[in-house]
């Protein structure tokens, strides 16, 4: 049993390391996500934030904008996770080498690390440019980590489902909506609590439950959508 876990971990880590090695050589996901996020953030700040007209209700509006920004940035980059493997025909070698569960977890770990990197860059910029003050920082950090994981897990699952479809980008938007909507509602609520100084215990538990459910659903569904 422990040997199986060790083998599985080695495989998942190999996928994770391969993804980052390819990413660092091409910069595809980081450039796409980063450019999209920064451009949108600048537009938002000029229109609504510190550089323009300040929102009359920052507590209500700005957390929504933060998560919409993160969602769209992720949507611009994460669908490529499996589509790229299909388009470049490397999916065949992966199917014949990797167990689906370790492949899914390796891809998920990579997606999560990309989302975290995006959040590390975007969130301080957003808070500064939009002049948003956070009362309870640990709650915001929880929202970013748990919400970011949910975005990565939901995005990876949908990316796997759409990989073999022809209009994959359109399909990603359609399928991602019902999968990611509950996550966004919860993440926005927790972020609002962080701004207001509330702990948001119920929404936090629900978000953890969502993350666990999407991970389990991904592990169960992935072999069926990945293999013929």
């Amino acid at each position, binding site marked *: 049993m422990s040997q199986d876990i060790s083998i599985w971990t080695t495989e998942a880590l190999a996928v994770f390391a391969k993804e980052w090695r390819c990413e660092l050589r091409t910069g595809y996901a980081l450039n796409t996500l980063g450019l999209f996020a920064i451009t949108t953030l600048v537009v938002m700040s000029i229109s609504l934030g510190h550089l323009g007209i300040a929102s009359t209700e920052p507590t209500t509006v700005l957390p929504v904008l933060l998560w919409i920004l993160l969602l769209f940035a992720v949507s611009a980059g994460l669908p490529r996770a499996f589509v790229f493997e299909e388009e470049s025909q490397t999916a*065949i*070698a992966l199917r014949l080498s990797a167990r689906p569960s370790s492949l899914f977890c390796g891809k998920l770990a990579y997606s999560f690390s990309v989302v975290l990197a995006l959040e590390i860059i975007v969130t301080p910029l957003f808070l500064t440019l939009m002049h948003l003050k956070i009362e309870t920082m640990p709650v915001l950090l929880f929202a970013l980590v748990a919400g970011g994981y949910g975005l990565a897990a939901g995005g990876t699952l949908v990316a796997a489902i759409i990989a073999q479809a022809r209009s994959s980008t359109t399909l990603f938007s359609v399928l991602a909506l019902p999968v990611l909507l509950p996550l966004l509602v919860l993440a926005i609520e927790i972020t609002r609590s962080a701004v207001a100084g509330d702990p948001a215990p119920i929404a936090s538990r629900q978000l953890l439950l969502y993350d666990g459910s999407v991970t389990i659903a991904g592990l169960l569904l992935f072999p069926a959508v990945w293999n013929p």
Partner: protein
Amino acid sequence: MALQSPVSLSFQGLYRNFGRLAVLRDISGSVSAGEILLVTGANGSGKSTLLKCLAGLLAPDLGSIKYWEVGQEFTTAERRLRLGYAAPDLSFYDELTAEENLDFFARMRRCPTQRPRELLDRVDLPGGRMGHALSSGMRQRLRWCWALLHRPRLLLLDEPFQNLDEPGCRAATQLLEEHLANGAAVVANPGALDLPYVTRHLNLDN
């Protein structure tokens, strides 16, 4: 046969359609250790489709595929991870070198760390060459390395000698002969090359 042989593959009554187009119709065959099953037929007769079905990359609409190693039968998911496969549509990562590509798959397949280097030397392929900079012949050599990385008992080879120059063909033939000491192979479209140990022949035109 299944219990005695180190490896055995048999398939019965395979059917595979693509929409209304029937590509495979009632195809049966088998192969055991030390043997090559040669699959021939005209273009579009279903050779590549058959190999994909045997590899577990396509599910047949009807029929059964059984795979044993030393008497133990394996499921499709297990067979997929155990066999070696080389075909024209098999590609590798352009952003990685030839050796990095093999290293990655060696980790996935739990092979000894020196195995990729050993195979690269056998086919005389420069391991430091980036994937996007490999010529078509070099890519074919890399496919051979990848197929043999985990010392599979069964090799499925589709157009295995395409784009290979004479030394490449010699190296590949030698690797195939060594494989057949303990393993079996199904080969489609071998070109004009004389293959050793061809003991079974499946013509898909019939």
